[in-house]
C-alpha cells in the first residue's frame, strides 16, 4: 500500500472540534493536511480531494441552506481542502460559494475552479467576469471550458487570460462519459493544464485512453461524479464494506470509492459534492492513510463489479 500521513476521521474531527470559531481566519486553523498531488504544468500541489458544487450548492435564496453550505465549506477548508469547483450552469451555486467565502473569510490558499459555459465565444469574458464577481475573488485559479461547449472559441481567450495573469490554469471538462474522442483530440493538440472527466468504480472507460494521455501530456485530472451523484454509494451501502477495506484505512463506502479514484496516478483531485459536514469530513479522510496500490485497485473494482 502507498502510505500517506495518518488523517483518520477521528483525528480530523478532533482537530476541527479544537478549532476556534474561525471568522476571517478560516485558513489559519488548518492543522492536518490531506495528501496532495502536483499539477504537472507547474508542480503546485493540490489536495487529492476537492469540493464540487453541482446540485448541492444550488439552494437559491434559502438562507438556512446557504448557511449549511457555508458550513460545509468551512469544514472543508479546516480539513485541509483547497479546490472548489463550480460553473455558471449550476444555478445559484457560484453565488452560494461567494456567500460562504464572505461569511467565513477567504482562505489564502483557496484554489478557485470555475467554467465558461456559453455558445457565443464573444460573451465568454463577460460570463467569466460575472462568475468572478459572484465568487467575490480577485481571479480564478482555473478556468475550464464546460462540456467542450464552443471550445474552439473559448480556449484562445483562456490562454490569453493566462498569459495576462488573469487566471493561472486552463482546462476543459466533460462528464457522464461523453465526447471522449473530442476530449482526447483537444488534450493532444492544446497546451492544457487540466482536464475534468467522470471516473469512478463503475465508469472506468477513461482508464483506456484519457488517463494515460493525461499522464503522457502532463495534464492534471479533476474527477467529477465520483459517486455517480450519490447513486453509486446508495447501491454500495446495501452491502457491508469488505473487511480488507481496513488495509487501506477505509471506514466507509464513500472513502472506498474515493480512494479508488485518487490512487490512480493520473488523477490530481476528485471533487465530490455534499450538503453535509460529516460527509465532507469523511470525503477528506479519503485523502489520508494508506492508499490502494495497483493490485488493490483491481481487487476493489472486481469486488464492486460482483455486487
Amino acid at each position: 500500500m502507498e502510505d500517506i500521513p495518518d488523517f483518520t476521521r477521528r483525528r480530523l474531527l478532533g482537530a476541527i472540534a479544537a478549532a476556534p470559531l474561525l471568522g476571517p481566519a478560516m485558513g489559519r486553523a488548518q492543522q492536518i493536511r490531506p495528501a496532495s498531488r502536483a499539477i504537472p504544468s507547474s508542480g503546485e500541489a493540490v489536495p487529492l480531494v476537492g469540493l464540487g458544487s453541482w446540485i448541492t450548492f444550488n439552494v437559491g435564496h434559502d438562507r438556512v441552506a446557504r448557511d449549511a453550505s457555508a458550513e460545509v465549506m468551512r469544514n472543508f477548508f479546516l480539513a485541509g481542502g483547497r479546490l472548489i469547483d463550480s460553473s455558471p450552469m449550476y444555478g445559484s451555486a457560484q453565488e452560494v460559494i461567494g456567500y460562504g467565502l464572505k461569511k467565513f473569510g477567504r482562505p489564502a490558499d483557496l484554489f478557485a475552479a470555475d467554467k465558461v459555459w456559453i455558445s457565443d465565444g464573444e460573451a465568454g469574458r463577460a460570463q467569466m467576469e460575472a462568475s468572478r464577481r459572484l465568487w467575490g475573488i480577485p481571479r480564478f485559479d482555473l478556468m475550464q471550458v464546460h462540456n467542450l461547449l464552443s471550445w474552439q472559441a473559448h480556449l484562445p481567450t483562456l490562454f490569453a487570460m493566462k498569459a495576462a495573469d488573469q487566471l493561472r490554469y486552463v482546462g476543459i471538462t466533460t462528464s457522464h462519459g461523453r465526447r471522449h474522442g473530442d476530449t482526447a483530440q483537444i488534450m493532444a493538440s492544446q497546451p492544457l493544464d487540466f482536464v475534468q472527466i467522470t471516473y469512478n468504480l463503475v465508469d472506468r472507460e477513461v482508464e483506456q485512453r484519457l488517463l494515460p494521455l493525461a499522464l503522457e501530456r502532463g495534464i492534471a485530472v479533476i474527477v467529477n461524479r465520483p459517486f455517480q451523484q450519490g447513486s453509486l454509494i446508495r447501491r454500495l451501502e446495501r452491502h457491508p464494506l469488505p473487511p480488507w477495506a481496513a488495509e487501506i484505512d477505509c471506514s466507509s463506502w464513500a472513502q472506498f470509492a474515493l480512494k479508488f479514484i485518487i490512487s490512480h496516478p493520473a488523477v490530481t483531485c476528485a471533487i465530490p459534492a455534499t450538503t453535509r459536514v460529516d460527509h465532507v469530513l469523511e470525503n477528506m479522510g479519503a485523502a489520508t492513510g494508506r492508499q490502494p496500490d495497483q493490485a488493490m485497485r483491481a481487487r476493489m473494482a472486481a469486488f464492486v463489479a460482483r455486487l
Partner: protein
Amino acid sequence: MSEWWTYGPRDLLMFSAQTYYRLFELYNRELWPLQMLALVLGVTVLVLWRRGGDRAGRAIAVILAACWLWIAWGFHWQRYASINLAAGYFAWAFAAQALLLLWLGAVRGRLTPAPATRLQQRAGLGLLLFSLLVFPLIGRLLGRSWMQAEVFGMAPDPTALATLGVLLLAGPRPAWALFPIPLAWCLLSGTTLWAMESPDFAVVPLAALLAVLLAVGGALMNAWPKRSSR
C-alpha cells in the same frame, strides 16, 4: 449544450428534492395567509361552475388567468428561477396561458360551462376538487412538512390540473388552444419529480393525460352523431 440529446432528465436536474420543496416552504411562509385567498378563489370557480352561464364562464377565465399570471411572476420568475435556469421560460409560458385564458375565456366566452358527457363532467369536477382539496395534502401524506404544501392558485401543479378540470367542464367543444401549456407543464413537472425520485411523480402527468383523453373522447363522441346524420 453539446450533444444535448444524450442527456436524460436526471442529468439535467439542477437541484435536490430538499431544495425544491424548501422553495415551496419559504414561498408559503412568506406569503401566508394568501393561501386562504387562493382557496377562496378556487371555491369561487366551483360556485360559478354550478351557477353556469356565459358570465360565470368569463369570470372563471379571469380567476384562472390571474392565478397563472401570479404564478408566472411570484413563483417562476421570483423564486423558481433562483434554482432552475429554465424557470424564466416557464414564467413566459405561464404568462402566455394567462393571456390565452383572458382572450379565449373572458373575451370570447369559450369557458362557459356546457353540457358534457357524464364521464367528462365527473372527471372535470373530480379534477377541480382534487386540485383544491387533495393536492395540498399529498406532500404531508408522503412525510413532507405542511408548510411545503402546493396550493391551487399559488403553485403551478394544482393550478394546471384545475385548469384542465375547468376545460373538461366547458363541454364537448373546448378551446383546444388552452390545453397545450397546462399539459406540457404537467408532463414536465412529473419528469422533474421523477428525476428527484419523488414517489408522487406520476400523479400530475397521469391526471393531465386523463383529462386530455377525456376531452378528446368527448369531442369525438359529439362529432360522431353529427357526421352520421348527414
